[in-house]
């Protein structure tokens, strides 16, 4: 009998895991709540550090899961522990008994309008990192003027922010901001581009090189200070205030576009899933792994595994690596149980 494995979430973690698990010969089900696969990455334009276009990447990932049963616009209504494993009832009416479940439910982008002082949704030229990627993907956006003279990026929007309920660093935003700053400078060479940061957390492969490029080759200005408030001037520009902490003086600048680097937050759905499947939540609000060092992909419960940003903020390569590791762990787990 072919064993059933259900993967919750059709982002890059779910796609990669589905491919690996299917190749290992299991009956694989992929449950995705939205109407498309690929998750957040699918709507991104290019990925650092090599500026790979995401569209072909996601296309390849999707074409690699032929044979996997995909349920789009479907949510998990209930999870019930049974003798064979877990019985999942889905919102489309289908019930599946799975020998193993992989949670790859990902993250939620912080809702930038919650930082009211930045005026997202109120001022004409305030956008988020996701909006900018969509614009670069060809979507029209009135908020980005035809020839901006000054563009700003606010790092850590909703991240490292206890009052916003997120103590975690969103990990990729510093790099995303630098990437997007460079992309904007390439499009608008005459514009001054400012990055407002608290710390630059550029830990990954070639990230620091990107930073050097941004400084040396593109002349992007880095201002160490968090934007405190944004307001609109009479000519419709944005006035941004921050403290220049490196010189200890208040600073203001007028911008034509302000990009808010919305951070990765816990997907609120995991709360429900954790209750249904009796999974533990870690102190940072993300799903709790068996341990956070050697066993990040195993949950506290037998047969339930994690991959990707459901356990914390992750980069794309980390997520893909976890997905593969999870596939192998599931395989070993099932071999053991046979």
């Amino acid at each position, binding site marked *: 009998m072919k064993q059933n494995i259900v993967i919750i979430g059709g982002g890059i973690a779910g796609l990669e895991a589905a491919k690996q698990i299917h190749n290992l010969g299991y009956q694989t089900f992929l449950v995705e709540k939205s109407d498309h696969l690929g998750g957040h990455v699918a709507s991104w334009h290019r990925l650092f550090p090599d500026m790979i276009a995401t569209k072909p990447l996601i296309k390849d990932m999707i074409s690699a899961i032929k044979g996997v049963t995909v349920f789009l616009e479907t949510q998990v209504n209930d999870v019930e522990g049974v003798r064979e494993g877990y019985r999942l009832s889905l919102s489309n009416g289908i019930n599946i008994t799975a020998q193993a479940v992989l949670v790859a439910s990902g993250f939620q982008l912080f809702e930038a309008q919650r930082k009211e002082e930045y005026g997202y949704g109120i001022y004409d030229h305030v956008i988020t990192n996701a909006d900018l990627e969509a614009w670069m993907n060809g979507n029209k956006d009135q908020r980005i003027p035809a020839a901006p003279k000054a563009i700003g990026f606010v790092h850590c929007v909703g991240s490292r922010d206890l009052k916003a309920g997120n103590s975690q660093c969103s990990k990729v935003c510093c790099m995303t901001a630098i990437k997007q700053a460079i992309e904007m400078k390439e499009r608008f060479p005459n514009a001054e581009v*400012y990055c407002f940061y608290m710390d630059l957390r550029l830990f990954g492969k070639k990230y620091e090189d990107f930073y050097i490029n941004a400084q040396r080759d593109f002349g992007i200005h880095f201002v160490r200070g968090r934007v405190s408030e944004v307001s609109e001037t009479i000519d419709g520009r944005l006035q941004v205030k921050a403290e220049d902490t490196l010189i200890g*003086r208040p600073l*203001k600048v007028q911008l034509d576009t302000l990009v808010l680097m919305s951070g990765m937050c816990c997907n609120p759905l995991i709360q429900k899933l954790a209750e249904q499947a009796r999974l533990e939540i870690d102190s940072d609000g993300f799903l709790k792994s068996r341990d956070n060092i050697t066993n990040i992909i195993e949950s506290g419960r037998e047969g339930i595994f994690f991959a990707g940003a459901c356990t914390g903020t992750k980069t794309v390569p980390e997520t893909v690596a976890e997905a593969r590791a999870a596939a192998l762990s599931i395989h070993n787990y099932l071999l053991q149980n046979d």
Partner: protein
Amino acid sequence: MIDFGFTLSKSSTVDLTTLDRSRYDQLIKLVPTARMCMNCGSCGATCTVGEYKGMSVRKVLYGIQRGEDVKAMLSSCMLCGKCTMVCPRGINTRNLILNLCKIYD
């Protein structure tokens, strides 16, 4: 004018929109590596005259981007080159100082 015993105090805010950064732009043309400063402060920490005059290339370079008066710091530099030696980004700090001393007025 009436003397009220108090007057409008000068704003300490740096207004990047109106700030004249031509001095910095001029410097960048002469010393392109100056753009690479990441404000680590090694230069100021090792500076030979730092302990007497508070000299720090970082402060000088940042100061001219923020409209600060850095003349006193500049005039104390002995060009010994320790800052060049310690700079992790390889900024040509001596060239930066010499050129600033030329264009600063």
